[in-house]
């Protein structure tokens, strides 16, 4: 019996990209439905009634929400191919901790750069670099956060790479100069077909951010 898999998503969403990468890693066929977040579909509102947010993963009619919960669900169900989390409980806890750190810090701090101006933006840029220095410290000299292979933490963070150009340009800084290992890691991840095919073009994201800024009255 074929699985019915649907993903409700929005092309620039880092959270949606996580799910798309996971699905690509597992080789799962799915129907992609693009949402207009200013005009949410009845399906989205039905499947994500609490938060009304994307991504929403619908497996045989049953919805799963929240990107990292979705990725763990995918890893649980399609467990025979390409495990995303390690098997050792301590390594798993360690991976969950850092993915949680990305969730708690990276989106907010990115927003403090692209969705602000003036002094707020300056402060945001400083915080952004601080957060990425912490992430760089955790990466160390490993090729991936997962060690030798791309894993859960890599997947949770790499989507933000597609926003780097926008953040660097608006924040007026060079991430490679500040966190060279992070940029090297990102480029390594992009050599994977699943990541390269999922992440949107950085310039396209920059244009999108520009439109959002106009809408917020920042430009």
């Amino acid at each position, binding site marked *: 019996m074929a699985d019915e898999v649907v993903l409700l998503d929005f092309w620039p969403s880092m959270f949606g990209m996580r799910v798309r990468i996971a699905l690509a890693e597992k080789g799962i066929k799915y129907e992609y439905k693009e949402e207009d977040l200013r005009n949410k579909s009845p399906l989205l509102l039905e499947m994500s009634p*609490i938060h009304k947010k994307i991504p929403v993963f619908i*497996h045989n009619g*049953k919805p*799963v*929400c*929240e990107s990292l*919960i*979705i990725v*763990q*669900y995918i890893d*649980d*169900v399609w467990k025979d191919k390409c495990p995303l989390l390690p098997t050792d*409980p*301590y390594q*798993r*806890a*360690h991976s*969950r*901790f850092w993915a*949680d*750190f990305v969730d708690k810090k990276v989106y907010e701090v990115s927003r403090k750069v692209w969705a602000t101006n003036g002094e707020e933006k300056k402060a945001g840029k400083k915080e952004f670099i601080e957060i990425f220095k*912490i992430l760089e410290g955790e990466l160390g000299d490993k090729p991936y956060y997962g060690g030798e292979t791309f894993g859960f933490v890599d997947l949770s963070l790499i989507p933000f790479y597609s926003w780097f150009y926008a953040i660097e340009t608006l924040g007026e800084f060079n991430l490679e100069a500040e966190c060279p290992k992070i940029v090297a890691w990102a480029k390594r991840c992009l050599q994977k077909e699943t990541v390269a095919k999922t992440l949107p073009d950085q310039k396209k994201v920059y244009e999108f951010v520009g439109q959002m800024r106009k809408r917020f009255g920042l430009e």
Partner: protein
Amino acid sequence: MAKNDVKVLGAWPSPYVMRPRIALNIKSVNYEFLEETFGSKSELLLQSNPVHKKIPVLIHGDKPICESMIIVEYIDEVWTSGPSILPSDPYDRAIQRFWAAYVDEKWFAAMRGLRSAQGEERKAFLDQVTEGLALLEEAFGKCSKGKAFFGGDRIGLLDIAFGSFLGWLKVTEKVNGVKLLDEAKTPGLVKWAERFCADAAVKSVMPETEKLLEFSKVLAAKMKGAPPPKN
């Protein structure tokens, strides 16, 4: 297993600290509870959780594990001979994790807001808290499928996540003169709360409401100065 092989760094009033303690009790694992002094952070805490500098921290052998719900999942995965805390079905697991995250990110955030808010703002937070409880009542119906807990016959992940806030819920009811868990509006949760608090794994770590109420006054006074260590 030697008692000093497993340590929990924490503080008795913290709902987040209760969570790994309940999980360890469910698994019948002996542990040493190292209590942090209110208002300061020990060297051990700063070393074990350099990123967030927060309690709880579980120290297993020499390995620190941080973030309460991550610790609970770790406990479930390590001590497999005890009763399971997470359900075996992947979809049920996703649902429990979803609601645990909702409780932490949305519901308790509104509860915390209620503590210091006044007037219109207070009413707004109260509405959010009550709406959240209505959602959780519905979730309880679906997850428990007529059984005693969100986890079924036994306490599971979501019971631990939400139940750990019951002490503070009772304090909030007293301080604000409101009934949050109500036989009329949330009958399922009212009975669940009684069962949860009476459970052997919970009883010894759930603080008495009066004690917590006294502490909340100390906390309120301290909040007028520096922010207290929490989470």
